[in-house]
């Protein structure tokens, strides 16, 4: 142990900037659930939510994906979309291409500002079906919300459209859950336009806060219990006693009441 300990010490010295972001590590107050946002093209809704989750006062570890076969962005007409490949095209490349094509049009319809925002969040759109769950994501170090997602797993998936939720569930069922790791998959139905994406991003952040709050409470309640001896068992309040996973439907229902225009759906799936 000493050996590996020194090794990690050395390692820390080599990378002093990296803060403590181990799986479930840190004080119970700093506990963070890991999130994943999903939409069709990994451009508008999932990226807005990605940005919101990673720039919140207490940012969350976040990754994001699209479930479509290709990245599709509106073109000059409805029948001429701009189509790109997932995983191999960067937001910057798309930005440059569209800016060269018709700067005025793409600025007016909000595509260029959107890509500009996305450029600041991560390198390029990723496809859900190509995601190898559990493979370390070292090459995504520069992405916003990388801290905590380095092991390539998340606790919560939030999709932005029912067919994305269907695609995610279908994909997880097909994968056969080799990791034995539970994951809550939510859908929050958001219309695919910039305004709704903004509203949806805010709503998703609220949901994330509520979920994370419950999860942190569960962990803390146990800490109090063990700290306060056997009597401490009763001191944690009822909500915390119930446990995080159990409370998810309640949290979602509460959230839904506040956001009735964003119909929600949820399931407990497995990675």
């Amino acid at each position, binding site marked *: 142990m000493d050996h590996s300990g020194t090794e990690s010490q050395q390692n*820390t010295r080599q990378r002093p900037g990296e803060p403590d972001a*181990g*799986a479930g590590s840190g004080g119970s107050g700093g506990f963070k659930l890991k999130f994943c946002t999903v939409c069709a093209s990994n451009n508008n809704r999932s990226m807005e939510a990605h940005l919101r989750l990673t720039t919140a006062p207490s940012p969350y570890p976040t990754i994001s994906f699209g479930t479509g076969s290709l990245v599709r962005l509106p073109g000059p007409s409805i029948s001429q979309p701009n189509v790109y490949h997932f995983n191999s095209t960067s937001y910057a490349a798309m930005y440059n291409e569209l800016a060269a094509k018709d700067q005025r049009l793409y600025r007016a319809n909000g595509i260029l500002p959107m890509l500009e925002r996305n450029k600041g969040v991560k390198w390029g759109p990723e496809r859900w079906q190509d995601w190898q769950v559990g493979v*370390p994501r070292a090459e995504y170090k520069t992405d916003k919300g990388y801290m905590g997602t380095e092991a390539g797993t998340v606790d919560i998936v939030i999709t932005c459209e029912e067919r994305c939720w269907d695609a995610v*569930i279908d994909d997880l069922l097909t994968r*056969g859950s080799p990791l034995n790791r539970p994951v809550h998959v939510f859908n929050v139905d958001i219309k695919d336009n910039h305004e709704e994406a903004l509203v949806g991003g805010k709503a998703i952040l609220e949901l994330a806060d509520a979920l994370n709050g419950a999860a942190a409470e569960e962990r803390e309640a146990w800490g109090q219990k063990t700290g306060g001896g056997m009597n401490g068992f009763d001191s944690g309040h009822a909500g915390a006693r119930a446990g995080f996973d159990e409370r998810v*439907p309640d949290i979602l229902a509460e959230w839904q009441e506040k956001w009735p225009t964003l119909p929600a759906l*949820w*399931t407990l799936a*497995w990675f």
Partner: protein
Amino acid sequence: MTDTGPILKSLSDARSIVLGDPSQYSVVVQGVLPLIGANSPLELRRWGADFLAETFASPVVSAEEKQKLSLLILDTLRGYFNRKDDLGEEDDSAVIKSAVQCAASIYPLIFRHTISSPNDSPEVWRKMAGIKSAILRSMDTAAAGVRICCVKFVSRVVQVQTPGLIADPRRPEHNEISLALVPRDHPVLQPSQLEAEASGLLDRLLGVLQDDSVEALSVTATLNSLSILVQRRASIATKVLLTVLNYNPLRLAMAGVAAMSGKDRIALKSMTRTTISFLLNVLKRNPNHALAARLQQRVEQLRHSLVSVYADSGSHKRPAPDEPTDGLDNNKRIRVDSETTNGTTPMQQHPQPTVWPPPLPPGPLSIAQLFTLSADRASIGFHVEQIPQPIVQQLVPPLLRSIDQKKFNDAITAIQYRLLSLAQRPPVSALQAAQAVMGEDEDDDYDPEAGLGTGRDQVMNRLDQLPPENQVEEVALAPFELEASPPLNDYELEQYGKVAVLRVFGTLAELDGDMKMGRRVDEERSFNKLGLGGHGHEREGWITLLTRLATRSTFDLDERNSSIKQENDDRTVTAKNHSFSLADKIRASLLDYVMADFRHRIDVAIAWLNEEWYTDRLAYSYRHPESSAKPSMTEGNLPNYTTHCLRTLELLTTYLDVKDGRYLIRFLSEIPELDASVLERVKKLADDPERVQMATQALLYLIMLRPPVREVCIDAAEALWRSNEDAKGSAAKILAKWRPGLLGQDSVGGKKEDATGMKIEAGPSEISA
């Protein structure tokens, strides 16, 4: 509590290393184990359990590596589960949750290790079994988060302990870990026991669904963990699928949507959608699944129920998209139908046409036209009498009550106005009326004939108008008499007769074709149900008709042209005196028909001969009303029957093959009467050495089962025995039983055993006789 901060820091650094370089896992895992054991502070245990779960789930670590490492961590894992026994307190649910995940990951690895190295495995397997029983114990009582991980663990155990596919028996390390890898004589693992355990655990898993649980967390966790079992374990896939098919995720909605809380609404929708996803996933992976139709049907059903459950709660429905999703999905745009608005026709929305009241057409009018204020062609054309009276009685009172007084007044005014304007029209001449009617009057809902006759009255005396139907009587037609056709000469008669017979048999051939095609004969089409009570096939009815046409229809037509023809009159002469007789023509055709395929049509022959016999008997009793004696073949009182029976049998015997004994037996046993002349034909059969057997069998059958002719038959057998060398043996067998004295006289009793053999054979017949 010790300050865990620095230790945690170094632990997370160690984790960073292995995430960057998976080859370091074995070193790091061994290094951290002493720090994260059951006696360590909570924070370290949490970190440790998470780290172990992550390590054994990681796809970048090879299975061999994991298998080696898994042996090392067993004690640590067991420590987490046994904390209550060891230290008097249960462990944190977060720790247990991760520990159960880790156990699910290593279970197959330990299983494979136990298979491959049975010598050091009893201890290892015992530890794993201990962990398993700890997990199973806590499955029902633990916190929900732990419980769902237990569900996953159990599903993994079921997967391991159920036989799977062996892809390549030579390379066991490449095969999926399953019960199929365990040799039958393994010292530690007993396949049957393990499989039984798996079966029990599967039942436990499915219990949640069988109880129609409303707890969304366990239901969705179970459904999502069952998928792999359906995919990989064919032996239990059907059971799982049937359980999911029978699962009703909509139980929450039983009390009505209004009674559901927000949580219930979400739970219901989530459980239903998860079920749908599960079923669709199975269907997608194997569209030709044996249960595919049921899967599809259940999916549709669930979708439908989900929609109907939420139909009245508008707030939860997704509003129609106001712009195309993705910017290009045409299907998602709202389709605006200019023709219809909320399902009503424009006429229903605007009940009054622009010109009110609608102008009357020029020319003569019917009352209906006069009172029709609607311009809707559909409602004009509708005949109210089509509605059954009880419904009218129900409809009228509420309709009367709901009439808008203003509309009603308007309608009265409109009719008044029409009447006035009609009165002001110049009188229409009959000629004009006729022209108007014959001309281009498209919407003529009245009878042109009526218009022709009464057009003038209609206009002049409107209120006396009568509906067209009543006026038909005025044009009464005299009965029309067809001119009698010239009498047919004999030649024509014969030709027409032949055509008639041809057509009758043509129909029979068609019906035979229908039978062969297996088509259901439409009973309503069958007009002839003679002697069948309407239950038979049309073919049978047709045959009955034919046989009766042959036997009863035409006899004595020519003879006695009396006003009342008596059925079954003297018919002995019919066929002979005339060049053509329809009955004989039909008989000949019937015979041809039977012989064309006697194996299938023997029943027709029998039916026909029965008819002949019956008719002959009736004819006899009609001719000799005073006689109480019954006519019989031997006395020559059944002329038609005798002729045709012998003729049929003669023809039949020429066709009978060695194997056709049963047709002969059937024929002989079912014809209504037989005598020596019939048996003469049977004896003749025995002239052919190959058919001796057939003939004697037929005789034996008749002797045994047709007592009235027994004596004649025995005589026939005796004749055979005496005259036919080939038939001697088999005839002797018959005689041994039925006329034993004869054999005794003649032979030297050498047939003893035959005689006894016969006795046994004949046993049943004695009873039946």
